């Protein structure tokens, strides 16, 4: 169905007429991939009363914006969205489709992948274009390399989807860099006919509650993060104290979150938030590849760990081999008396 020279497409998520940041980041990445492949970048936008958003998507790099504007699409629901997006994909034959790895993207993308019988790679930390030689010697030109840490640690897998189109991937917020919008860019808005069936509308939203994010890791200049080595939820107050003194946010590794020391919104890493602060202080974090994937582009990394062989030290600029319970109070005193 989809041709090898089809466009690159990004599913754009929006809430109340505001595009999700991850979707804008993916447009920037999508632009790069489309230029590399010499094809157009399409945005697929669904919602109700959202046509005004198209200009912004064009400013972030879209050539064509497919807009499905319909009252039944006001809030995300699996089947109406899957119906419309799959239809746009069938009609426009993209070679690549990217989705944010949000609750919406992770609900929608696999449904569509199954319907279109194509591949999908979750939580990619890098996307590139390159050739692939199959075990039988067949050479595939210009495939999407879908790169992700896999399997608990220390390995990075490159996944390809040689024989099926589109090649689809989800990417977490913050992984791709958000470029500057170019308001002078011109693009095309393509209205999408929305033809929903009764069976698409059986799920009813009774109530919806969203809270403003209380943790702003992405915007933080300084992040003090704790891992399993912090030991307990109570002991995390040391992390909070240091963050407060330095005017930073509190981050955490997945194992600290899994152990219930701190809530998920603080999680940094492949399945959490990707951050690039000026200073990242990793306390009691061993530094599994998934965690490193989410923070290794920090300008300066300080690692505090009792284990001198912890992998975190290999990406840190400053290492303190010691007990965080002793070292953190020292850092607080040192900063206060600067």
């Amino acid at each position, binding site marked *: 169905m989809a041709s090898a020279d089809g466009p690159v497409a990004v599913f754009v998520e929006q809430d109340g007429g505001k595009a*999700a940041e991850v979707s804008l980041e993916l447009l920037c990445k999508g632009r790069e991939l489309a230029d590399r492949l010499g094809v157009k970048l399409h945005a697929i936008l669904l919602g109700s009363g959202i046509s005004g958003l198209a200009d912004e998507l064009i400013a972030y790099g879209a050539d064509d914006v497919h807009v499905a504007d319909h009252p039944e699409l006001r*809030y995300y629901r*699996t089947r109406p969205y*899957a119906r419309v997006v799959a239809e746009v994909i069938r009609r426009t034959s993209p070679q690549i489709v990217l989705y944010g790895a*949000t*609750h*919406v993207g*992770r*609900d929608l*993308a*696999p*449904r569509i*992948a*199954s*319907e279109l019988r*194509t*591949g*999908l*790679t*979750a939580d990619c930390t890098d996307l590139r274009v390159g050739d692939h030689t*199959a075990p039988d010697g067949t050479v595939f030109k210009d495939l999407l*390399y879908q790169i992700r840490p896999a*399997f608990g*640690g*220390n*390995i990075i*897998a490159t*996944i*390809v*989807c040689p024989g099926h189109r589109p090649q689809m991937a989800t990417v977490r917020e913050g992984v791709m860099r958000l470029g500057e919008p170019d308001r002078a860019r011109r693009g095309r808005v393509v209205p999408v006919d929305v033809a929903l069936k009764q069976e698409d509308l*059986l*799920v*009813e*939203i*009774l109530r*919806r*509650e*969203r809270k403003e994010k209380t943790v702003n890791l992405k915007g933080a200049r300084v992040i003090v993060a704790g891992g399993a080595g912090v030991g307990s939820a109570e002991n995390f107050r040391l992390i909070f104290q240091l963050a407060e003194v330095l005017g930073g946010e509190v981050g955490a590794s997945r*194992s600290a979150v899994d152990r219930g020391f701190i809530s998920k919104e603080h999680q940094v890493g492949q*399945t959490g938030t990707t951050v690039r602060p*000026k*200073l990242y202080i990793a306390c009691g974090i061993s530094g599994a*590849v998934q965690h490193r994937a989410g923070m290794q582009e920090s300008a*300066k990394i*300080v690692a505090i760990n009792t284990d001198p062989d912890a992998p975190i*030290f*290999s*990406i840190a*600029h*400053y*290492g*303190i*081999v010691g*007990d965080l319970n*002793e070292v953190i109070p*020292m*850092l607080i*005193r*040192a900063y206060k008396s*600067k």
Partner: protein
Amino acid sequence: MGYDCIVLVKQVPDTKNITGQAMREDGTVNRAALPAIFNPEDLNALELALQIRDAHGGTVKVITMGPPSACEVLREALYRGADDVILLTDRRFAASDTLATSYALSCAVRKIGRFDIILCGRQAIDGDTAQVGPQTAEKLGVDQITYVERLLRLDGDIIEVERGIDGGVERLRCRLPVLLTVCGTANLPRPPSAKRLLAYRFHTCLPEIENRVSQELAAQGRSARREDVAPIAQARAAEVQRLGRLITVWDAEAVAADPALVGGNGSPTKVKNIESVVLAGSDLVLVEPTEEGCRKLIRELIHEHILG
């Protein structure tokens, strides 16, 4: 009336205890080198199914797809309260990606036929993809509700649940049948019951018996070819069945799965390569864990305008 629930579970390597040797050259996982566990969030899915049955009546069937050793999670499901368990196993299923897996599972569900609710864990800890649930729902043509946190109401063919959305929660109502993927925070899975453990610990399946027989023959220095193993294993399986302890095993034929759509053949995604992460490092400055060391570090960070 009651509800017929099917729980899809996975035996996963305990990713918290992984070493580089766990990966084969071709990029697939050498599961034998790792401790295998019941995927944690699948326990939450099982628990929700058991709660539904306990409150409304009905049945809880558990299916797992995997090698014969995955029978272990089926026994665990029995210990915790499942009514019936099925092992979906076939060499041709090996190397399935999420699409091929969801196809095989959907074939097994179709073979069972009637169901009201399918439950899966939100995601498995080996891949963290969260894809097999939605893909299975699509293959079966039923609605899906992912990230389920709470069952609010179950009445006739109406179900209401609370699910996580980005930055919040929403309450959804839909008609059965439906597929739910359940979060780890949804409930606290019950432990295995001692009584059920005693009742079900000898439950086993033919492929497991075959493995055991072949090991026994080898240990005795005897030939363990297929034709040597088969008659002994079958005799034992007959005895296990007589005692009501034989776990149902389905292969690709049993569930009428098209061989072209399972395993590597049915998987659009391929692992191109696997790299061990080589850490750059080397420009690490070691700071003494002392008051003086910390003062020097803070001074340097301020000097470089990293800290204000």
